[in-house]
C-alpha cells in the first residue's frame, strides 16, 4: 500500500490548503472521493479494466504537487511554440493544473454573449450555481481510483459554457503545458456544458516543457444538450517521461452530435479512458483515435460507448502504429441497453506492428440487449500489404518511401475525420515528420530546441 499511503498522507495533511485555494463546488465531493480512494486503492493489472497498464506502479514514485498554487514562472507565449499555430483560435493555457489567466486580450477573440471559457476555480467561485449541478456527477469516484484521486486533489482547470442556441464559429484551443523543475504531478479538471443547439469546436494539446518526470491526471465531464454539436480534438505531444491518465465522460442528449478525435503523436505512458453515454434518441457519435508509438512508449485506450436510447449511431475507429519496443492496447465496449432499438454501432480497431518487440493487445466487445440493432466490430493486427509494396517498387518508389506512403495512408483514415482543415493539414505534416523520425520529441518543448 506504499503507493496509496503517500497520497492518503498528503491529502490528510493538506486538505485544508487544497480547499482554501480552490472553490466550494470543487471541495464538496473531496471527502467522498477520499473515502472511495482509500477503499479502492490503485488498480493493478489484475483489474480487468486496467489489465494492460499497471496504474499502481505509475503512482509509486515521488512527485511534487503544487497544492499551494505557487506561481510557476512561465510565459507560455515566449517559451512555447505550439505545433498547431496560427489556427485562428481563441487560445488559452493551462500550466500544469492552473488555468493561466494572463492571456492578452488580443489572443482572446470576441466570444458570443454568455459564453464562458475560463478557469474552473474562478467560475466556481463566481457562479457556483452553474458549476455545482454538473461537477463530479458523471465522473463517479466510487468505481475508479484515478477519478477519485483527481477529485481529491484537483483545484482548478478548464470550464466552458456555451448557452442554448449559441454558436462559436472559431475553434477554441487549450494548451496544457507541463512545466516544472522537479518531478511533478498535475491534477487537471475539465468541465464543458453545451446548451441546447449550441455548437463549438475545441482543440486540447498536451505538451511537456521540462526534462523531468510528469504524471498528469485529467478528468473531463462533458454535457452535450439537445441538438448541440461538439467537436473535441485532443492531441498529445509530450516526452517519454510523461504519464497521462485521462478519464473523459461524455453525456449526449437527444439529436446531439459529438466528434471525438484523440491523437497520441508522442508520449511516455498514456491511458485514456473514455465513456460516452448516448442518452437521448437520434444522438450521433463519431469517435476516432490514433497512436504512433516507438521506443518504450505505451498507449492504452479504453472506450465505452453506452447506447442508452433508441435510434442512436456510433462510429468508432482506432488505429495504432507500433515500432521498436512500443506497446499498445485497445479495449472498446459497445453496450446496447434494453429498449435501445435501431441502434447502429460500428467499431474498428486496426494495428500495425513493425517489430518483434512491439506488442499489441486488442479487445473489442459488444454487449447487446436489444434485438432490432445493427452492430459490428472488427479488429486486425498485421503488417503493410506486401503486394502494394511491390507494386509501388516496380514504379520506382524505394521500399522505405513506399512503406512511409502506406503508413500515412493507414493513419490518414483517422486524420481525415478531422473537420478542422488547419488542424488536418498540420497533422498530415506532423505525422509525416513523426514517421520520418524527425519528431523525436515535442517540437514545442524548451528542451528540444
Amino acid at each position, binding site marked *: 500500500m506504499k503507493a496509496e499511503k503517500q497520497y492518503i498522507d498528503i491529502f490528510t495533511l493538506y486538505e485544508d490548503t487544497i480547499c482554501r485555494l480552490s472553490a466550494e463546488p470543487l471541495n464538496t465531493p473531496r471527502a467522498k472521493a477520499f473515502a472511495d480512494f482509500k477503499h479502492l486503492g490503485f488498480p493493478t493489472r489484475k483489474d480487468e479494466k486496467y489489465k494492460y497498464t499497471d496504474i499502481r506502479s505509475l503512482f509509486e514514485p515521488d512527485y511534487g504537487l503544487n497544492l499551494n498554487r505557487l506561481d510557476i514562472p512561465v510565459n507560455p507565449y515566449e517559451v512555447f511554440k505550439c505545433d498547431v499555430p496560427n489556427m485562428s483560435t481563441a487560445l488559452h493555457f493551462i500550466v500544469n493544473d492552473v488555468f493561466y489567466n494572463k492571456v492578452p486580450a488580443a489572443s482572446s477573440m470576441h466570444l458570443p454573449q454568455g459564453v464562458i471559457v475560463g478557469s474552473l476555480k474562478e467560475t466556481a467561485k463566481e457562479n457556483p450555481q452553474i458549476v455545482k449541478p454538473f461537477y463530479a456527477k458523471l465522473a463517479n469516484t466510487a468505481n475508479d481510483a484515478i477519478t477519485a484521486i483527481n477529485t481529491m486533489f484537483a483545484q482548478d482547470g478548464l470550464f466552458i459554457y456555451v448557452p442554448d442556441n449559441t454558436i462559436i464559429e472559431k475553434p477554441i484551443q487549450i494548451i496544457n503545458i507541463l512545466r516544472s523543475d522537479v518531478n511533478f504531478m498535475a491534477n487537471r479538471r475539465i468541465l464543458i456544458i453545451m446548451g441546447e443547439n449550441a455548437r463549438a469546436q475545441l482543440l486540447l494539446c498536451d505538451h511537456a516543457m521540462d526534462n523531468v518526470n510528469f504524471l498528469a491526471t485529467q478528468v473531463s465531464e462533458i454535457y452535450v444538450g439537445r441538438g448541440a454539436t461538439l467537436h473535441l480534438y485532443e492531441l498529445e505531444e509530450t516526452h517519454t517521461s510523461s504519464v497521462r491518465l485521462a478519464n473523459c465522460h461524455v453525456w449526449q442528449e437527444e439529436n446531439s452530435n459529438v466528434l471525438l478525435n484523440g491523437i497520441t503523436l508522442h508520449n511516455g505512458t498514456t491511458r485514456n479512458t473514455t465513456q460516452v453515454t448516448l442518452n437521448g434518441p437520434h444522438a450521433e457519435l463519431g469517435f476516432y483515435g490514433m497512436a504512433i508509438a516507438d521506443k518504450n512508449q505505451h498507449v492504452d485506450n479504453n472506450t465505452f460507448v453506452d447506447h442508452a436510447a433508441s435510434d442512436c449511431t456510433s462510429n468508432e475507429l482506432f488505429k495504432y502504429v507500433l515500432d521498436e519496443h512500443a506497446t499498445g492496447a485497445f479495449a472498446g465496449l459497445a453496450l446496447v441497453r434494453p429498449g435501445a432499438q435501431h441502434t447502429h454501432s460500428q467499431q474498428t480497431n486496426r494495428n500495425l506492428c513493425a517489430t518483434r518487440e512491439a506488442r499489441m*493487445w486488442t479487445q*473489442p*466487445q459488444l454487449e*447487446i440487449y436489444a434485438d*432490432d*440493432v445493427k452492430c*459490428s466490430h*472488427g479488429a486486425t*493486427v498485421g503488417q503493410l500489404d506486401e503486394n502494394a509494396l511491390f507494386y509501388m517498387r516496380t514504379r520506382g518508389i524505394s521500399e522505405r518511401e513506399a512503406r512511409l506512403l502506406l503508413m500515412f495512408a493507414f493513419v490518414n483514415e483517422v486524420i481525415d475525420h478531422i473537420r478542422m482543415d488547419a488542424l488536418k493539414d498540420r497533422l498530415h505534416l506532423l505525422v509525416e515528420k513523426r514517421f520520418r523520425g524527425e519528431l523525436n520529441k515535442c517540437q514545442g518543448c524548451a528542451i528540444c530546441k
Partner: protein
Amino acid sequence: MQSPNQYKNPSTNKGLESSNDFVRKIAEGKYKYGFTTNIHTDIIKQGLSEATIRLISEKKQEPDWLLEFRLKAYRHWLTMDMPTWAHLNIPNIDYQAISYYAAPQKKKAPSSLEEVDPELIKTFNKLGIPLEEQMSLSGMAVDAVMDSISVKTTYKEHLIEKGIIFCSFNEAVQEHPDLVKKYLGSVVSYRDNFFAALNSAVFSDGSFVYIPKGVRCPMELSTYFRINAQGTGQFERTLIVADDESYVSYLEGCTAPMRDENQLHAAIVEIIVHDYAEVKYSTVQNWYPGDIEGKGGVYNFVTKRGNCLGKSSKLSWTQVETGSAITWKYPSCILTGDDASAEFYSVAVTNNHQQADTGTKMIHLGRNTKSTIISKGISAGHSQNAYRGLVRVAPNAEGARNYSQCDSLLLGSQCGAHTFPYMDIHNETAIVEHEATTSKINEDQIFYCNQRGISTEDAIGLIVNGYAKEVLNKLPMEFAVEAQKLLSISLEGSIG
C-alpha cells in the same frame, strides 16, 4: 402527408407480430430427452472430502499414482475460488450437496450386450444411440457414459485389429497405464482452473482413445453422455492421443433428464496431436436446459483443450450447443508445432433463461501456425449468449495467421448477445483479423418467405439453419442430421 415515423408497413408489422408469436411459442418448446431411466444405481454419499476421493479411487481399483494425482488436485482445488469473470449469473453451488459417484449397478463389467441392463439399453435406444452393433452399421463406434460410468463400448474388437484403443477411461487406466500416465493432465493441468481441479480430483470415468502411428481410424468414434441419477454430478474425462500421421474423427453427444434441481457437469477433454496427425472433435451438447421459468437444468462447466504438439498437426473443434442452463466452455488449441493448424466452429443456441459464455482460445507458439474461428450465436427468450475468445501470438510464432468471425442473431427483445474477443499479439509477422456482427433476424427475408407461402415459423427455421450452415457443414453426416433436428427442437418448439 404522414411522417416517416407514423408510417408503418402493415405486412411487415404482421411479420413482426407473428415472429413475436413464434418466439413465444418456441419459449414454450419442450425438452425431448427429459425421461429418467429406472435402473439401479450405485451412488456414494453426498459430499466431498479426501475420504470421498479415496473411496472413488478404491471403487475403481486405481493405482496409487492416480490416487495421488486426484489428491493433489483436490488440495489445490481447496485453494481456488469459482471464476466470476464470465458473463454469467451462477448461483452458489453447494459442492457438499453433490454425490461425486453414481454408477449403474452391476456385478461385473459387461462383455456382451446381453449382460447390459436392459433398462439401460432402452434408455440409449430412446436416445437413438446405435448401441447395438447391428444398429451401428452406419459405421460408428460408441462409448456410452451413463452418469459417470462407461457402460458399453461397441466395435472395440474391430478397432483393436488396427491397433486403435477406444475404451472407457477406467479400462485404460487398468490396461494402458503407461499411456494414461504419460498424457493425463499434460494439456489441462489440475491447476488450470477451478472446475479442472474439481474434475481432476473426482472424475469417475470417460473415454480414452489412442490412434497409433500412420493409422486412419476407419469409423467415427462416438461417446454419448447421459446424466441420469438424481443429485449427482457428472465428471468425466476424455483423453485422445493421435500419434504421428494418424487421423480420427470423434463425436460427443450429451443429454440429461428433466429435473427441478440443477445438475453439475464438469468435464475435461484433453487432446494430443502429434506430427502430421489430425483430430476432429465434434460435440452436440443437449443437456437439459431447464424449464421455461429457468428452473432446473445442467450447469455445464467444461474444460476442453488440445495441443497441436507435432509439426503440421491439425485439430478441429465443432460444437453445436443447444442445452444446459449455464454453459461455461472454451474448447481451445495450443499450436505448438510448426505449421500446425486449428479450427473452431460453433453454433450456440440459447432460449428461455439459458446462459452461455462460450468460445475458444488459440495460442500460437509455433511458426506458420494458422487458426480459424467461426462462431454463430443465436439468442431467444430471456437468454444471454456470449462469445469469449482469445487469440495469442507468442514472440516466436512467426507467420501466425488467425481469422475470427463471430456473428450473433437475436430473436426477441428480451435476450442478450455479447462478444468478447481478446487479441494479444506479440509478433510483428502475425496477421490476425476479427470481425463480429450482431443483428436481428431479417424481416425482409421472412416476408419474402411468407410471400412464397412459407409460414413465419418455417421461415425462421430455414433462416436459422442457413445462418448456422457454415458450422453444421463441418459436422460428420450422422451428426449433422441430429444437430439440425436439435436446432429445430430448440427453436421450433411449436412445430411437429
